[in-house]
C-alpha cells in the first residue's frame, strides 16, 4: 500500500475517532490522534493478520500497551474487518464490547488486555520468547506511550528482551512528549529514549511517527540488527491533525463541544482532500 493510501485511511480513522468520542462523551482523543498513523501502517502494510482467522497461530501479534487509546485500535480493527464498522457507534455504551480498554476475550484482534500501563511490553517479551522457543517466524509488536515508560516494569522487560536476543520483537514508543497532566519534561523526563534503549542493547530507529513511508520502513523486517530487539522512537504530536488539540496537554481526554467538534471534523476533511 502506498504512503498516500495509508494517509487516506488514517485520515478516515481520525474522523471516525473524533466522531465516536464526541458521541460517546468520553475517550482519549489526544493520544488516539498521535497513535493512529502507527496503527494504520502496521495493520494495512506490515502485520500478517487475518480477520477471518484472528487466532491463526502464525499471525503477527500487536499489543497496544497504551490501552486507554483503545478506540483508535477498535476503529483500525473495524476498517480491517475484525469487527463490524457500525459497531464503533456502541463505544462505551451499555453492553458494548468496546470498552475503554481493549478486552481480548470479547474483541477479535485484541491480543491481550491492556490498561494498566507498563503491562504490554512484558507480555510481548513473553510472546516473542515463545515464538523463539517454538522456532516460528511470526513477529510481536508493542506500542507504548512515552509517559508509560516511567513504569519500571518496562525496563525489566527491556533488559529481558535484550538478554534473550529477541529480534522478533519491535517496541514502538509513541513519543508525543505529553502525559495525562503535564509534559514528560515537567514530570519525569525520560527523553532522549534512543540512547537509553541502545545502551540496553536494542537496535533503535527514530522516525516521524506521522510519516507513513518512514513508519513502514522502520517496522519492516529489513530494518534491524540480528539478535537485537528493535525499538522505534516515533516522534508524534498528541492531538495530531487538529490544530487546537495538537501538542496541547489539555486534550488528553477532553471531549470536544459542538463548535470544537465541527472545527476538528472540518480540518480533517480538508486534510483528506
Amino acid at each position: 500500500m502506498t504512503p498516500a493510501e495509508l494517509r487516506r485511511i488514517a485520515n478516515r480513522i481520525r474522523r471516525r475517532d473524533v466522531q465516536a468520542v464526541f458521541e460517546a462523551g468520553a475517550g482519549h482523543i489526544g493520544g488516539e490522534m498521535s497513535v493512529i498513523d502507527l496503527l494504520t501502517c502496521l495493520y494495512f502494510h506490515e502485520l500478517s493478520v487475518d480477520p477471518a482467522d484472528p487466532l491463526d497461530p502464525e499471525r503477527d501479534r500487536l499489543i497496544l500497551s497504551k490501552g486507554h487509546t483503545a478506540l483508535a485500535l477498535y476503529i483500525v480493527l473495524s476498517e480491517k474487518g475484525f469487527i463490524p464498522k457500525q459497531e464503533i457507534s456502541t463505544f462505551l455504551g451499555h453492553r458494548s464490547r468496546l470498552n475503554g480498554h481493549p478486552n481480548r476475550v470479547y474483541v477479535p484482534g485484541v491480543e491481550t488486555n491492556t490498561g494498566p500501563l507498563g503491562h504490554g511490553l512484558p507480555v510481548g517479551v513473553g510472546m516473542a520468547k515463545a515464538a523463539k522457543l517454538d522456532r516460528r517466524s511470526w513477529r510481536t509488536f508493542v506500542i507504548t506511550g512515552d509517559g508509560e515508560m516511567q513504569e519500571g516494569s518496562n525496563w525489566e522487560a527491556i533488559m529481558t528482551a535484550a538478554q534473550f536476543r529477541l529480534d522478533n520483537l519491535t517496541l514502538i514508543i509513541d513519543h508525543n512528549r505529553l502525559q495525562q497532566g503535564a509534559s514528560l519534561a515537567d514530570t519525569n523526563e525520560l527523553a532522549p529514549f534512543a540512547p537509553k534503549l541502545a545502551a540496553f542493547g536494542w537496535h533503535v530507529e527514530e522516525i516521524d511517527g506521522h510519516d507513513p513511508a518512514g513508519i513502514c520502513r522502520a517496522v519492516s523486517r529489513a530494518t534491524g540488527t540480528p539478535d537485537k530487539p528493535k525499538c522505534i522512537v516515533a516522534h508524534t504530536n498528541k492531538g495530531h491533525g487538529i490544530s487546537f488539540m495538537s501538542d496541547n496537554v489539555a486534550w488528553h481526554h477532553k471531549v470536544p463541544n459542538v463548535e470544537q467538534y465541527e472545527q476538528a471534523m472540518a480540518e480533517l476533511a480538508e486534510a483528506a482532500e
Partner: protein
Amino acid sequence: MVEMVSRPYARAFEAFAAGNPDILCLSADLTSSCEIDGFRDRHPDQFVSLGMAEQNMMSFAGGLGLAGFRPFLHTFGVFMYRRPYDQLIASIAYPRRKVRLMGFLPGVTTPGGMTHQAIEDIAVMRSIPNMTILETGDATEVESICAAADSVDGPVWCRVLRGSVPRLFDTPIRLGEMRVLAAGTDVLVVTSGICTEEAMRARAALAKAGVSIRHLHLHTIKPFDAAALLDHIGSVKHGVVTLENHVTEGGVGSLVAETMADAGIGKRLIRLGLKDSFAHGGSRPYLMRYYGLDALALVRGIADLTGAAFDITEEDLAAARVDEVHSLVKAEAL
C-alpha cells in the same frame, strides 16, 4: 518415627517437567532457593532465568501462556504477589492463563521477618476470580503438587515446602478433595500446610485426655467442597477449631466460618493462626509457639471450645517429626 524427605520438590519437579516441552521453568534469581538448580543444569532448554524482575516475570509468563506454554514460576511466595499483583491480575488471572505460581516459604517457615513471610497470600488469592489454591503439608504433597497444579485449566497458586519435609501421607494430592485424618465425634479440627503436622502431634495426647477429634487436612483451599465440610461439622458435638500458617482473616479459618454462616450452622468456631499481626524474624518452632500456630495452641483452643481443662504439656505431645529440623543447628537460609 516420621520419615524426613530431603528436597522433595527438586526431584518431583524434574521428574514431572523433564521432557515435556510445553512446561517451562521460570526463576527470578532464587533458583537454588527454590530447589530448581539441578533442573536448570540438566534441562537448560526448559529453564528461563528472568533475574530479579518479578513484574516482568509475571507478564512474561502471561505471554508464554498465550502461545500455549505452561510456565511454572519459582520464587518466594511474597515476591510472587506483593510486587507484581497488578500483573498477576491482568496477565494471568483474568485471561485464565495456565501459569503455575510456585510460592516458597509460606507463612512463618522463613525467619526472614515481615518482608519474606507470606502470611496473607491465601486471603488475597481466595478473592481473585479464576484462581486455584493448593498448599502442601508434607513431602508426598510436595511430590504431587506439580501434577495437581498442571491439571488445572487456569492459574494455580501453590504454597510449597522446601528443604527437609516430613512424610505424613501415602497418597498424592487429589484436587478438590480433603484428607480425613481422624473421624472422632467431639471436635472437628481443620488444618492445612505445616499446621497439620502440629495437629497430628496433639491428637494422641488429646485422645488420652478423652477428647474424640475429627481431623481434616486441606491441600486444596480453592475450589472447596463445602458440602463435605458441613457433613463433618454435623458429625461432631462441640464445634470446630481451625489452625493455619496464615492470618486468620481470609484463610482457612475464614473459609470454614463462611461455610458455616452460609449454611446457618450454629456451632462454635475457634480460628487459630496469626491474629491481625505481622510476624517477626525467628526460628520456625519459636514463631509457631510465639504466635500460637503449634500443637500446644491447638490444645488450648480445644480446651476453650469444650470447656475441659487439659493437663497437657509439650512433653506429652507426640513427636510427629524428628528433631533434626526443629533444632536451630541449621538456620533456614534466606
